[in-house]
């Protein structure tokens, strides 16, 4: 304990001295890296002095490349056809149409919502749940669709609960 107290004293004195030295203009020795790299990662050689503002490169494609509008529109048109087919209780035709919509534009997430509806119509709640999860994942940030998708989820769960 006493040893520790003595060491702290020594540090306090040293701190005072360093504080005074800070006023002087003499250069400081280069600071050593404070934290060693994790075991399997050898420390790279010291880097050269950086430019004040090094440009930030992106390691992946620009994410904002959405499906071009004509393609997206063609796909949405098919989704709308599928919606009408579901309303006419033609589930198989609707599923086929939604597959076409997804093939044209894989980013057409509304197709998942209607795929879930079509499978509900066909009485396969498990498949409906699968597509509902996809709809949740893709449309979850869309306020207009979120409540529809959640409502669908509840209907699917009710159906699943009824299934023995």
């Amino acid at each position, binding site marked *: 304990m006493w040893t*520790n107290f003595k060491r702290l004293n020594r*540090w306090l004195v040293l*701190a005072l001295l*360093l*504080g005074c*030295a*800070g006023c002087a203009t003499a250069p*400081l020795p280069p*600071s050593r*890296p*404070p*934290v*060693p*790299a994790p075991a*399997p*990662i*050898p*420390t*790279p050689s*010291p*880097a*050269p002095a*950086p*430019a004040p*503002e*090094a*440009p*930030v*490169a*992106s*390691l*992946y*494609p*620009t*994410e904002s*490349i*959405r*499906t*071009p509008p*004509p*393609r997206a*529109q*063609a796909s949405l048109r098919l989704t709308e056809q599928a919606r009408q087919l579901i309303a006419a209780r033609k589930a*198989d035709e609707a*599923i*086929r149409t939604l*597959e*076409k919509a*997804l*093939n*044209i*534009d*894989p*980013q057409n997430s509304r197709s998942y919502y209607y795929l879930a509806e079509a499978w509900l119509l066909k009485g396969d709640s498990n*498949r409906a749940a*699968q597509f509902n999860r*996809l709809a949740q*994942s893709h449309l*979850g*940030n869309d306020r207009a669709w979120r409540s529809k998708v959640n409502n669908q989820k509840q209907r699917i769960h009710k159906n699943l609960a009824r299934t023995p």
Partner: protein
Amino acid sequence: MASSNNKKSKRRFHPVRFLAKFTLVTLLLAAVVMAVYGVYLSRDIEKRFSGRRWSIPSTVYSDTTLIYPGQRIRSDALLEKLQRLAYRAVDHAPKQKGQFRRKGESFEIFLNDVNLIVLERSGFPVKIDIKKGTILDIRHGLSGESIPLLELAPEELMLFFGPEREQRRLISIENVPQQVQRAFMAAEDTRFMDHFGLDLRGILRAAYVNLRHGAIHQGGSTITQQLAKNYFLTPEKTFSRKIKEMVLALVMEQMYTKAQILEIYLNEVYFGQKGSVAVTGLGEASLFYFGKPAAQLTVAEGATLAGLLRAPNRDSPYVNAERARQRRDQVLHTMVEQGWISAAEGATALASPLKPSGFKVYGKKAPYFMDYLSRQAEALYARDDLAKLGLSIFTTLDTEVQEAAEKALAVGLERLEKNDPTLRRREPDRRLQGAIIVIQPKTGYILAMVGGRDYATSQFNRVTHARRQPGSAFKPFVFLSALNRFNPASVLSNTPVTYQVNGKSWRPDNFSPMAAQTVTMRTALAHSINIATVDLAMKIGLDEVVRTASAFDFSTPLAPHPSLALGAMEVIPLELARAYCAFAADGLLPVPLSLKEIGDDHDQVLNRRHMAVEPVTTPAKAFLINSMLSSAVAEGTARSLKGLGIGQPVAGKTGTTNESRDAWFVGYTPEILALVWVGFDDGGSVKGTGASAALPIWADLMRRIPQHLSGAWFQRPAGVVDRVICADSGQLAVTGRCPRPVRELFLEELVPADPCPLHQPPQSRLQKFFEEVKEFVDKL
């Protein structure tokens, strides 16, 4: 005495009377026998006619084709598509269904009627405006209304023939124009509507003509007799058979109306050969000779078809146009004589040119795909049923992608052999081989399948049956296994290490020497660095790699050996392509679909298959793999892709196995995924890499199908964030200090928390003091 004389006279034999009586009795007996025989035959006729009358081969169709404004398209490819759909080029604005005119890149098309379970539509004229490879506009040719989405009919790919190899398309007599019906009567039986099955006048005339010439010049058979002969009897010429034919004709006339008999006849008769396939029935013949349905035949065309019945292969307009024209004119003259057409109509028809539409000999398209599909169809229906039930089988095949894949493979393999003549082998069955599979990742639709270089030489489908080592093409599954603990910026060792495997030393090497001692995970995958990949696999554990990869449904065994990380086990190309689909589809593994629907000859759906997917990883992890594989294309082993004309973002991975036995490239976008394999069946070296042998074929394929590349990239799912990190340390970049700050993607739960340890700003003395105090207190 007188009475006895009378009795004698009564008993006297009268030959004439006897003969009369005998004849009468014989005739009565014959009539009874004939009546009994007729009743017996009528049962046979009813039995045959009430059931399926003909064996109709089942037809396999491609998928429909969707086109829309804004779509990139090759004008030549659309032209080929129209030709495959039997549209006829004209040099004027199309006036009839089935015609088209090309103007520069643009098209005017009079669409055909389509009556299939996958598409039902009446034909209408349409204008497709194309400029610089992009569809600018699609408009209705009459109303001028804009059409946002146009669906072209599926193409016929294959017929499931029975042993007789007949191609037949049934028609209903109501759909055959009256004048075409008359043309057949004019050619074969002018008194068809008047006789009762036998034409006595015709028989006598034929007998007279034959006697006069001392040879058989005329048959005298009515249409009903011909039908009886074709349908019920064997071809031998005997007296008894002739009698039977006459009785059958009489019975048939009693049982059926003239219209029914004519309909059966027109569906039954033989119209010549299309390669090895017999063209049977008016429905098929009208398409074969004039490229249009029977309902649209003109008088002249009907007369041509009727005229060639006597000798279809000799009088065919494809064989001898002049003879076909002469026969047509004879029929037309008879029609005028009979008053069935006016003299003016006859003159117009006689003056019209005889122009057959042209045809392609039936050939098996996409043969490897068809074999793959046939196995699935035969699991549902017996081969015999497929040959006779006339089913319609709709598939996912895209004929344009299939053609592009076949061409790209053929050209690519040829190029490899040209560049390195040692790859060229004389024996056809030992030549350099290749395989391509193209899939739509989200739905699992198989768009194209090329199982080998030449189906005629080798029917072995390398896509579905070959078991080859994937080499580095397996690495993404190792990296996926690591994403629970590591991120794309994690630093891996690139220092050579010797591993002990089953008591033997194994030391993986990099494909090309590399000085760096460490690399990030992204760089390791992008540059396909073996040492770093094995390092990663050993860190996460080989069992974990096997567990992760097994979720992708590889049917081949995956053993937890260190070499697994470098793909030193076998996979089936289709299964590898399917597994990659999960990366492109938010972590959902699709079931590969080739068969979509099967319908019967009444357009009722008998069997249907929909897309099916199962989750094998999270959308966030799939997105990170896509991102790292995009680096392989942007700067790694697949960077040559850009120079080959593929400018849009693509995720891809090359693969090369030991001694270059296999060269792979799997590349994908959100819309399409294609796998290319190149190698020798006997394991010989292709003397190249995935990048040099397989990748150029992939690039060629994609250049041929611009309609499948939108330029879009994957949308970032929830759970993925980006941070600016130091490229050297993989930790958060220190502004103004780190020389190579880069933006990197992370799973939300694995974001680096610490600043770069390599480029810390110089600490102030006070900071340093407090840090040491903190350290001191911690030690206490």
